[in-house]
């Protein structure tokens, strides 16, 4: 349940940057391969935001697709999870995208 500490970090970072203003909306980018569940973040976010300037803020989560490059044939592979393999059969993949875990932006009142 690392989502709780991650949600807490998100609240902490946003509150620091808001400098006392009320936060209305937070946009996160979460990669499909990041091992972080958007639903669990949503659940924890409200709990963590309580009694902070982030309380009541709308949480927007943009899920980022996973992408890898095959190290054997050079082809690109869409990754829905870490168990994908290339059309050539190789599992020797270099992850290019999908492990993002980022606060994109926030809106303050």
């Amino acid at each position, binding site marked *: *349940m*690392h989502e*709780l*500490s*991650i949600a*807490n*970090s*998100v609240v*902490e*970072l*946003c*509150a*620091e*940057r*808001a*400098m*006392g*203003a*009320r936060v*209305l*909306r937070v946009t*996160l980018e979460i990669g499909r391969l990041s*091992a*972080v569940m958007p639903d*669990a973040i949503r*659940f*924890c976010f409200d*709990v*963590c935001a309580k*009694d*902070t*300037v982030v*309380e009541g803020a709308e949480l927007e989560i943009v899920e980022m697709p996973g992408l890898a490059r095959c190290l054997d044939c050079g082809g690109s592979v869409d990754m829905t*999870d*870490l*168990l994908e*393999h290339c059309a050539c059969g190789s*599992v*020797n993949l270099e992850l290019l995208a999908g492990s993002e*875990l*980022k*606060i*994109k*932006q*926030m*809106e*303050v*009142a």
Partner: protein
Amino acid sequence: MCTTCGCSKGAGTVITDPQTGERIETQAEAREPGSWRQLAGGASGTSVAAHLHARAHRHAHATHVHEHEGHEHSHDHVHEHIHTQGAVALNHPGAEHSPIATSEAAIAAATHGTTIALEQDVLAKNQLIAEHNRGWLASRHITALNLVSSPGAGKTTLLERTIRDLQDLHSTRAIQVIEGDQATLNDAERIRATGCRVVQINTGTGCHLDAGMVSRALEQLDPPPHAWLMIENVGNLVCPALFDLGEQAKVVILSVTEGEDKPLKYPHMFRASRLMLLNKIDLLPHLRFDVERCIAYARQVNPSIEVLQVSAETGAGMKAWYAWLEAVALVEVAETVR
């Protein structure tokens, strides 16, 4: 508190040194008074305009364009001044826009909200401390390994055997241990019984170690140069995969009493690990565990993972593990010298 797994952000971490009996408690929520954990428009008497004014300069450090109801302006000046709460200095030097423009922006912002681009990696703070740990360890030529597994895979037994065997082999390198568990000093006591220096981290209700905890434990442990530092993480195949502690490599321990498809079920952990130790192989005759299939699954999620089959109970295969440890330590020194 999180009602899903019982994690609590309020619970502090406790680091115990069984040798000295010293206990260091860290309150996770300990923050300076008046820090961010207060509601907007609190009792400080600060006006909304003052907040907005402070923010207007806070986000002016980067070059960007933002829109406010019908007009657009860009901040491309770089100046650093943070106004204290309540002090509304409208005719400050260095600003390129007039006080009137600022208040217009403030009104527009108050009605619509101001978007602040952050582009901030959520785990950046942990990563920064982890890199600090890594640098500190490298300066002492210490080889740090992060041992991860599900509960009961035999991490502590493996460590006990490793410490005793390397003592018998008169290894020139010391081993020191950081134990991570939610509660109890049991594992630290087992390690201490081998004569090895150990510090226990109790995470309270937390489900993984983070770089900050390890940093504090390192201060207490103060391992000697050229040592191996074994960090036994909380038994959990999920969360520890995400938190870099500053280790040189993760070693995942999978016991043959677990399912052979664990690498597929917990791909993040097996992908993040350099070595898989397949433990309790002395029990294989009594189990339906397909070793080859398990290794194939591990290589499916991580083609470069190394695999060693061991029994910490009987000592089978342990020599290869010691050779691996020695090789990693040599690489550590070579990289530092380079």
